[in-house]
Every structure is written in C-alpha cells, then in structure tokens.
C-alpha cells in the first residue's frame, strides 16, 4: 500500500471539487475532512490498492449523501429561498466549475448522478425529495450546463 500522503497528493483536489459540486462550497470542507478521516481509518485494512481514486470518490459520495440526509432532517426555514449561485474565487478545472455555479438542488442532483453514478431513486432519498423532483432538478441542471457550454 502506498503512503497515504500519496492519495492526498494525487486525489485531494478532485475529491474537493466533487464535494463542492455535491454539497456546495461552504460545506465541502467538512465533508472533505470526513472523507479522508474515514479513508485513513480504513486504509491499513484495504486489500486491493488497484483503484484508490475510485475508492476515495466512493467514500466522498457517501459523505455527501450523509450530509444531504442530515440536512434533510433539519426543518427548512422557508419553503423556497432565493438560490444564489456559489461564486468560486479559485476557478476549478472545466465542468466542475460550471456545476459548482448551479443552484444547490440542481448541483447536488447533477453531481450525485454523474460523479457518484446514483440512480434517481437514491438521489431523491439523498436530497429528501420525490424521485420526480430529483429527476426535474437533474434535468434543469443539465439543461443549464448545456446552455453554459453552448
């Protein structure tokens, strides 16, 4: 098994980018800590070091889902808050920058679908909404990304 620092050197930026996409910039740092602490805890017992990047990203996605679930249990102050895009002073590479600028629900739906490869039902569970609502957020997010990229 390579020294754990190698995993940080090689994959921390990507994990952070995925988490910023999944949970937003302000909560990404906490999820990042949770992800790497969980990984560090499990690391010596890991048998297969063939796909450490995939392993880390899977943990990150689980932490993002945990985060959404915990948030889903909290009462929402108002039904619909104005969704201000997250502005990111450090530009991220390529698509994650655009994903990061989506409204929170769309951003989370897009990340969970395409980075974590979750089915709609699980995205819905993670976001605490109906599968139709999850599908709609995803659709709107993708539409917006297409427009941005066009």
């Amino acid at each position, binding site marked *: 098994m390579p*020294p754990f620092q190698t995993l940080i050197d090689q994959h921390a930026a990507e994990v952070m980018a995925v988490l910023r996409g999944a949970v937003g910039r302000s909560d990404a740092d906490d999820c*990042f*800590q949770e992800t790497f*602490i969980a990984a560090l805890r499990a690391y010596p017992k890991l048998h297969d070091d063939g796909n450490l990047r995939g392993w880390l990203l899977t943990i990150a996605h689980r932490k993002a889902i945990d985060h959404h679930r915990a948030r889903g249990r909290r009462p929402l102050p108002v039904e619909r808050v104005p969704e201000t895009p997250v502005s990111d002073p450090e530009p991220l590479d390529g698509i994650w920058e655009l994903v990061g600028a989506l409204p929170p629900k769309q951003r989370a739906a897009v990340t969970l679908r395409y980075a974590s490869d979750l089915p709609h039902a699980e995205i819905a569970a993670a976001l605490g909404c109906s599968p139709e609502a999850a599908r709609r957020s995803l659709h709107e997010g993708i539409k917006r990304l297409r427009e941005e990229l066009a």
Partner: protein
Amino acid sequence: MKNAIDRLAARAATEGLLDVAYTSADSPFGPLLLATTPRGLVRVGLPNQDAEELLDELAARVSPRVLEAAAPLDEARRELDLYFEGKLTEFELPLDWQLSRDFRRRALRAIARIPYGQTRTYTEIATSAGNERAVRAAGTACGTNPIPVVVPCHRVLRSSGGLGGYGGGLPMKEALLQLEGAAG
C-alpha cells in the same frame, strides 16, 4: 486546499490515525527527511537518500498511514538545528527503534551512547552489542541505521583509524566529526 489538508493531518493526529508523520528539514548538507511515530523519531533520511523510496519503506514496515505533518516533528527539527549550529551535544528526543532488531538494535543503542565529540571502532560497538567477533555486522548496523545523525553512527570508525563508510557519503561523515571537534 492547503488549509483543508493541514486540518486533516491535525485531526488524524488527535484521532490516533497518524501513525507516521514526516516533514523535511534543512541541514548544512541538504534537506533531511524526518519521520516520527507517536512513540518517537523513527527515521532520518539523509540528503542523498531517495525520499519517495524511504516513505514507501515506512508505509510497508511501520504503517501505510503516513502523512506529511510538520508539527509532530517540531522538537526534532529544533534539536537538529541546534546540533548543526554546534549548540547541542546530546539529543533528548524520544526515539522509536522499531526499524532495527536484535543485534543491530543493540549495536545502534551502543552507538547512541557514544558521547559527543568522541569516536569508537566497529569492534568496540560489536563488543558492546554482545558479540566482539561480529565486526562486520556492526558495520552493517551502522550502514542500515534508520536514525542517522541523532543515533551518531558517524562516530564509529575503523580500528585502523580509517573513516569506514557512511550512508550520507564520507564528506558528510567527516564534516560531522569536524563539527564535533572529533576529526583527527
């Protein structure tokens, strides 16, 4: 990003998940790689040694939970700085001997007791380690010393008075002996 990684190392330490912390430290000979476990300094990499190889070895032999973290090595860096300035004659750092065993560990412990500015021969070290005929093995113990400088294998010479060998290269051995005023 850097902040997030620093916080991670600090949290790993408080949760008992930082098995090996390492950092690099300046020396008059070039950068040293310092590695510590919660028990103490476990490895010093000399400037001519490959840092990546050394970290791989630590991951394999101590624990793969190896993280770059300067704070756990502050004291080691401080003592080494003073030593290289000629202001420290005895290291007080806790050491972790787990990378050496049996005869080699006994030989290294004997080496650790050689006072500053003095030298011993490989034969004397072999004798202190319990086997006066194991002179070659005493040489190997020096050559594989995981904690050079702090465990001063540079203070061990040939019975003939020759310098013998040194993992960091003979010029470094000579310079250390000179620093300590032990060069003949």
